[in-house]
């Protein structure tokens, strides 16, 4: 959609990428905007479109951390985005070791 990011300098996905990269020193990071899948979503009506993302992140900082803790680390890095219309992130958070298998 050409109109989607009109008043946003950088897409949310790009901002998320930068924030996650610097907060968690990700060795691998994939961000997918899946907002279109939630277009009719009750909570999304009226917001600008960039609301739902899939995040796959590999970081050595997840070592020894529970899933809840890992998700919290991702949410913490994205706090500003969550306060500005980001509704949901599906998170896959792994350590380099876990992906090596």
């Amino acid at each position: 959609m050409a109109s989607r990011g009109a008043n946003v300098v950088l897409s949310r996905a790009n901002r998320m990428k930068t924030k996650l990269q610097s907060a968690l020193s990700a060795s691998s990071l994939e961000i997918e905007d899946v907002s279109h899948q939630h277009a009719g979503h009750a909570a999304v009506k009226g917001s600008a479109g960039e609301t739902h993302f899939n995040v796959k992140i590999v970081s050595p900082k997840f070592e020894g951390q529970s899933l809840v803790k890992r998700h919290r680390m991702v949410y913490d890095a994205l706090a500003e985005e969550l306060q500005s219309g980001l509704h949901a992130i599906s998170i896959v958070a792994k350590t380099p070791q876990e992906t090596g298998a």
Partner: protein
Amino acid sequence: MMAKSLSNLLFKGLAGLPATRTSRIMVPGLNYQHGMRYSTTVPNEPDTHDDFKPTNKLESSGLSLKDVVEQDVRQNPVMIYMKGVPDVPQCGFSALAVRVLKLYNVPLSARNILEDAELKSAVKSFSNWPTFPQIFIKGEFIGGSDIILNLHQSGELKEKLNDIAANQKTE
């Protein structure tokens, strides 16, 4: 400020209401046999869909929303705060979480945070977690749909729910 105090008033009534149990999922074709134990907590009005029922919010109890959440989590072995209700989730992530939990035949208690902006923020600050659904098992915060799916796949969820499922069978 007006709006704030009005909604505080409105939401006080929540405390008097138990979180909705699986008995709400009385839809033909769904497995609710274990949840039926709880049907006594819900008025037996087959024609009244919960979504359209007045929600008794005006009932006064003096409990804060934080107290309500604490009570929910303490009193319900499996508590989910979600978008929509278990039989009609209004978000794919909430739907996924419910689908996973239903595999275990445990009583599922739920609140629809789309109905209550104040409840929604109370839950968020209680768990310090920004998104929904949010699942609590035996008082422990578990996480959202990704985590519940993960725990399901790893077998950890079975362990966590084992005694709850066992209680269901013996009663």
